[in-house]
């Protein structure tokens, strides 16, 4: 684990455009982010989501770091903010699941149709989903891949794939409900 001054040097270099220093900085903060999330998030998929969201936020906020100031409070402020978002998402999902949606039942969700009429209707809705959810649905429910194969092909863990499919289906349902309301 690098010291604050080392992280500060890497981040200052990253701000100046040193990509190697930036990659080293992001890799160096990973254990810290995992440690922050591990105590609060139980599922590995949620932990992965939190770490990746935080990395994206660090990327967005990297211009706000002032050289000469400590890095850790800066980093922890961003990570805490993303952690509270992750917890909110987790509670919301648990609420949905407690209303009768069991993630284990994902395996039994019928395949989404491909080229027939209904499939074509779903295509614009699928396009609105976040990349990960769309990819997970495409691999597991359209191409009919097994979880293990989809995980090997995409590099996404099996747990994260299950969550992505679950969220994707929940989002599709919401979109369809909204469309029906408009009709």
């Amino acid at each position: 684990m690098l010291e604050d001054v080392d992280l500060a040097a890497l981040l200052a270099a990253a701000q100046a455009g040193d990509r190697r220093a930036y990659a080293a900085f992001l890799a160096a903060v990973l254990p810290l982010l995992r440690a922050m999330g591990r105590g609060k998030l139980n599922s590995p998929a949620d932990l992965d989501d939190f770490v990746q969201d935080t990395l994206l936020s660090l990327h967005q906020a990297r211009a706000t770091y002032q050289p000469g100031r400590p890095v850790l409070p800066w980093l922890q402020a961003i990570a805490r903010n993303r952690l509270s978002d992750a917890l909110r998402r987790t509670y919301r999902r648990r609420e949905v699941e407690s209303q009768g949606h069991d993630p284990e039942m994902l395996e039994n969700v019928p395949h989404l149709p491909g080229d027939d009429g209904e499939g074509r209707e779903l295509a614009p809705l699928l396009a609105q989903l976040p990349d990960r959810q769309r990819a997970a649905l495409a691999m597991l429910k359209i191409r009919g891949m097994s979880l293990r194969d989809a995980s090997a092909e995409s590099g996404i863990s099996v747990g994260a794939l299950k969550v992505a499919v679950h969220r994707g289906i929940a989002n599709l349902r919401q979109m369809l409900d909204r469309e029906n309301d408009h009709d």
Partner: protein
Amino acid sequence: MTDTARLIDQLAAEGAGVRRLPRPLWRLLRWLCLSSLLVLAMVGIEGLRPDLAQVVQRPVWLAQQGLALGTALAAAYAGIAFSVPGRERWEKLVWLPILGFWLSAIWATLGPMAAALAVTDFSEIFCPHCFPVISIGGACLLAWDMRRAAPIAPARMMGLSLVAGCSMALFGERLIHDEFEAPLLMLVQILAILAAGPLLAPLGRVVFRWKRG
């Protein structure tokens, strides 16, 4: 290669140099200059109040103006501090003592009269032209600056932008108009400003957001 390792590679590949956000004091100074231009524009349109030469000799008026401007600057500074991760707590609370002093000074001059509060119309409290232009303009300028920073506390950033913009409007309005001077009215003005902050603060979640990957 895992998803996270791939993301790090991707971010590092996109990680061209960034223009560092200026220090909070510089950002505050820039906001002060820009919002002062709004005040000057309204002075240009509406003209200065006719008795300005006399009122600037009154210490109470000067103190009130100082507190209005002080609240605007302190609220803007706190909002800016909220938009930079890891700033100290005192920077985020710096506006409260000034505001508290301002409120208690007015409250002390009012005494029991405060119970007789009865205001029915916006135009009885604020100038319907100067106040919206300076307050909304000032809040938007500050929000524009904050959007370059980090949306760590969006609701508080939005609330403080509004308090800063409204306090600046109060400062500017008193250079232009002489009919919003009574202590009771000032108290109502400040309370209205304070109410606007929390009421509109949830808008911050729409204005200040993390980008999605």
